[in-house]
């Protein structure tokens, strides 16, 4: 007599068989589908041999159960290896299946593992164990633990889709093992023997979860399958109700209801499927974004490194350029000081010219380094309290040699009350003022320079006025641009064309400004600089 448990076993065998075929034929070109398909079919055969003793209790079926049972872990191990990205070599396949077939043969053709059959529980048959039964158990448990170990290890190593796939297989495997342990070991220990034959049917759980994982398309398909089962169950109930209705009216009502439910069910399944597809797309997209972000981060790091390397290169290159210039400057200064004896006036003039040219080169190197730092945003400012009069006076003192040499005058107008201190980088503000006074000396042949300092309550103004060559309106255009000398002017014959550009950039960084005024050609120029007073 076949009871309900045994029917469950048969249904499981059929379902395993169908799922095995489904995966196998869904994409036979994929190795994992083939390996898993084989696993499904072997499992189906195993469950089937578990069912057979109920209709034909013989030692043959029990032995077959153990024999095919030996192939289940072997086939499982192979596709799990593939899923976890391990190499499936011919040697590995042969070795694993050889072990499986060894136990298959041992179980089948002699009495080493099982010797006899006996009905042990309601609906269940077990064999009397043979001398190699313990070895057989070690093989089965060992193979199953290898599968679990491999899955857990890989789960923590991978990410994205692979992780989700392995999570599904792990859930299935763990549920399966828990159920088997519960019905085969824990419940029997507590005296509950009636569920023991649920062990082989519960393999369907593992099969369903792994099918979900492998067929990919239904990776998030648990909800879909539940929806389909629900719709099918309600549909079946409605059909039975319609068929068994007592009156024609109720029958018609039942069928109409069934048709309506059919439409609704179809729409429900379609909507669920669409939602799943959208989620899969989002998952895919977010994976792509993740990859792009990683690439972007790497690119940014490389760029930062390059930027740093460029700045470092410039610092070293400037150092190398400055070294010979320093030697020229130093020796010429010593000659001009008279440390190497007296030279004729003509020679002195030449030395002065060499010195001036050398100064221009030094200034050029300094400006280029400044510009490169400004451009890459690596200019650093050392902000402190700065007294503008002190800086201006020291610059005038420094340049007095050249002023006297050109027979020019220099006047400094400053308010009686000392100026308010500004918050600024002393060296950079000094560089700006020095540049303006130096320019004024260069472009003034007669007369002189007047420097005026004003406290305008919320800002300080520094004005450098000269009686030099002046500028036309056209010449004043683009005065603060890089290489403004290139604008068709004979302006700044001795300059680098970078000084005013750098000055403007430095002032902008201080929230200050610079501008120029001139009445025209030969009417002198005035350069104004304003720096804000920032209250602390």
């Amino acid at each position, binding site marked *: 007599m076949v009871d309900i448990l045994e029917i469950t076993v048969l249904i499981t065998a059929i379902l395993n068989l169908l799922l095995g075929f489904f995966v196998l034929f869904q994409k036979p070109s994929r190795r994992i589908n083939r390996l898993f398909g084989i696993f499904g079919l072997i499992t189906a055969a195993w469950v089937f041999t578990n069912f057979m003793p109920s209709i034909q209790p013989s030692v043959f079926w029990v032995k077959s159960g153990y024999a095919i049972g030996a192939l289940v872990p072997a086939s499982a191990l192979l596709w799990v290896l593939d899923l976890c990205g391990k190499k499936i070599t011919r040697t590995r396949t042969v070795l694993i299946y050889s072990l499986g077939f060894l136990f298959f043969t041992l179980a089948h053709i002699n009495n080493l593992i099982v010797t006899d059959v006996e009905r042990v529980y309601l609906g269940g048959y077990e064999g009397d164990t043979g001398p190699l039964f313990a070895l057989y158990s070690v093989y089965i448990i060992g193979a199953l633990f290898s599968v679990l170990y491999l899955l857990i290890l890989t789960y923590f190593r991978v990410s994205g889709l692979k992780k989700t796939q392995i999570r599904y297989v792990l859930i299935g495997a763990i549920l399966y093992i828990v159920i088997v342990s519960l019905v085969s070991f824990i419940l029997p220990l507590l005296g509950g023997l009636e569920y023991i034959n649920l062990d082989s049917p519960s393999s369907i759980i593992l099969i369903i979860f792994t099918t979900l994982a492998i067929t990919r398309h239904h990776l998030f398909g648990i909800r879909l399958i539940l929806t389909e089962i629900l719709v099918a169950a309600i549909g079946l109930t409605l059909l039975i109700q319609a068929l068994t209705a007592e009156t024609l009216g109720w029958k018609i009502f039942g069928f109409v209801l069934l048709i309506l439910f059919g439409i609704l069910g179809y729409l429900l399944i379609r909507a669920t499927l669409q939602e799943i597809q959208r989620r899969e797309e989002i998952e895919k997209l977010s994976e792509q974004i993740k990859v792009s972000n990683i690439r972007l981060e790497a690119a940014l790091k490389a760029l930062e490194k390059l930027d740093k390397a460029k700045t470092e290169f410039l610092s070293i290159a400037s150092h190398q350029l400055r070294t010979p210039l*320093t*030697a020229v400057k130093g020796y010429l200064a010593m000659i001009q000081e008279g440390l190497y004896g007296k030279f004729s006036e003509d020679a002195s003039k030449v030395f002065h010219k060499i010195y001036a040219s050398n100064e221009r080169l030094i200034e050029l190197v300094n400006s280029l380094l400044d510009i490169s730092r400004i451009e890459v945003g690596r200019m650093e400012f050392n902000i402190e309290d700065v007294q503008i009069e002190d800086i201006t006076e020291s610059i005038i003192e420094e340049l007095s040699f050249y002023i006297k040499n050109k027979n020019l005058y220099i006047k400094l107008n400053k308010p009686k009350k000392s100026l308010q201190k500004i918050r600024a980088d002393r060296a950079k503000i000094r560089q700006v003022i020095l540049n303006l006074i130096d320019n004024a000396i260069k472009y003034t042949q007669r007369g002189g320079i007047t420097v005026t300092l004003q406290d305008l309550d919320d800002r300080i103004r520094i004005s450098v006025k000269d009686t030099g060559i002046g500028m036309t309106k056209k010449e004043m255009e683009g005065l603060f641009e890089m290489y403004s000398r290139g604008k068709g002017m004979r302006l700044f014959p001795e300059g680098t064309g970078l000084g005013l550009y750098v000055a403007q950039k430095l002032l902008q960084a201080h929230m200050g400004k610079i501008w120029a005024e001139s009445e025209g050609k030969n009417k002198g120029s005035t350069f104004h600089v304003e720096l804000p007073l920032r209250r602390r």
Partner: protein
Amino acid sequence: MNKKILLIEDEKILSEMYAARLKKEGYKVINSQDAEGGISLIKKEKPDLILLDLLLPGMQGQEALKILKEDPATKNIPIIILSNYDTPKVRKQSKEYNTKYILKANITTRDLVGLVREEMEGSGQG
């Protein structure tokens, strides 16, 4: 007695130039072409001031500055960083150790004499 200056500078043309100018002012100048040699000379020569270049073969000037300023035996010797290598990082470090940082290309040998005098007087007062 003549004041002693230790010049740590690897560029021969510059070390000769600075030495020549400083000797004219009556200073005794000892030159070392690298930082390691310079540091080992300090114990023997006990200089009154050190002129330190930054880009050197072997140990760099920044490291030498750290060693000299953190060693109780040498921390009171005034140091002037004299280099054409100019980075904000080094400027910051020199400020931390309260050390003058001079760009060689921006000063003449006469300016250097002025700076040395100023620094020695400063340390003499301190």
